C-alpha cells in the first residue's frame, strides 16, 4: 500500500512538472510573439496578427523554444533574417545610440539647469 502511495505521488509530481514546463514554454512563446512585429500587417505584433507570415513565425518560435533556444537567441535569429525592425524592443547599437542616450542627456541637461537656478 505504501509503495502504491509513493508511486502515485511520484507519478503525479512528474506529471505536474511536465505540465509546468509546458506552461512556462507557452508563457515564453507569448512573450516573444508579443515583441515581434508582423511585416505584413505592420503595426500589429505577430501575436495579434493572423497573416500567413505571422502564423509561420509562430511555428518557427515554437520550434526554436522546443529546440531549447533562449529568448535572446530567438530574437537574434529573427534579426539576422529581417533586421532590427522586426523586434519591438530596439537593441543598443550604432543605429540606436541617439534613441537610448538622448532622453538621458536631456534629463542631465534639465537637471543641470535646475541645479543652476536653485543655486
Amino acid at each position: 500500500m505504501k509503495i502504491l502511495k509513493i508511486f502515485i505521488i511520484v507519478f503525479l509530481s512528474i506529471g505536474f512538472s511536465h505540465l509546468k514546463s509546458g506552461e512556462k514554454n507557452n508563457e515564453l512563446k507569448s512573450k516573444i510573439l508579443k515583441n515581434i512585429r508582423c511585416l505584413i500587417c505592420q503595426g500589429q505584433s505577430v501575436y495579434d496578427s493572423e497573416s500567413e507570415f505571422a502564423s509561420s513565425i509562430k511555428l518557427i518560435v515554437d520550434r526554436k523554444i522546443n529546440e531549447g533556444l533562449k529568448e535572446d537567441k530567438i530574437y537574434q535569429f529573427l534579426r539576422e533574417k529581417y533586421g532590427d525592425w522586426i523586434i519591438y524592443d530596439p537593441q543598443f547599437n550604432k543605429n540606436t545610440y541617439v534613441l537610448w542616450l538622448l532622453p538621458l542627456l536631456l534629463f542631465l541637461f534639465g537637471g543641470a539647469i535646475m541645479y543652476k537656478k536653485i543655486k
Partner: protein
Amino acid sequence: MKNKFSLFIIIIFLSFCFFIFYKGLNNSNIYTPKIKDKKNIPIFEAKDFNSNIYINSEKIFEEDIFYIVNIWASWCIPCRTEHPLLMGLSKNQTVKLIGLNYRDNLNNAKNFINEFGNPYSQIIIDYDGTLSVEFGAYGVPETFIIDKNKIIIKKFIGPINKKIVEEIKLIIK
C-alpha cells in the same frame, strides 16, 4: 542680449525639429527588410515536389554553379506575371532554378506547372511557410540569387520584371 540669444537658440531648435518631422512625413512608413545583406543559405530538409522524398539543402545546392531560388504559389497572382520570365531564365546553362512552393495545395500547384510550364530544375515544398522564414522571406513571390560559395548575394521582393532579369543575367554571367 541674453534673452535675444536664448530666443535665437529656441527658434533654431524648433526649426530643426520642424525640418526633421517634415522630412519624416515624406518617408514611407512601410518597412521592407534590407535586401543587400549577404547571408549563407539556410541548412534545411524539405520534401521534393515530384518524388515526395525528403532532401537536404546540401544535396539541392551541390553543384558549383549559381542558383536562383524562387518562392511561388499557385494562388499568387504576381507569380503568374513573372512566370514567363522565369521560363526564359531557365534556358540559361549557368544557373539552376529552385522553386519553393509556398503554403499551397499540391494539386493546384501541379496544375499551375502543367499550365504555365516548369522553369525549375527542382521544386521543394514549404507547407507551413517556415522554410521561407529560414530564407528571410515574408511573402510570395520572392527571388534569391545564390552564388558558387552558397551565399545569398541578392534578393528581390515581389515579382521579377525584365529589368531585374537583365540584372540577374549580369550577375550570373
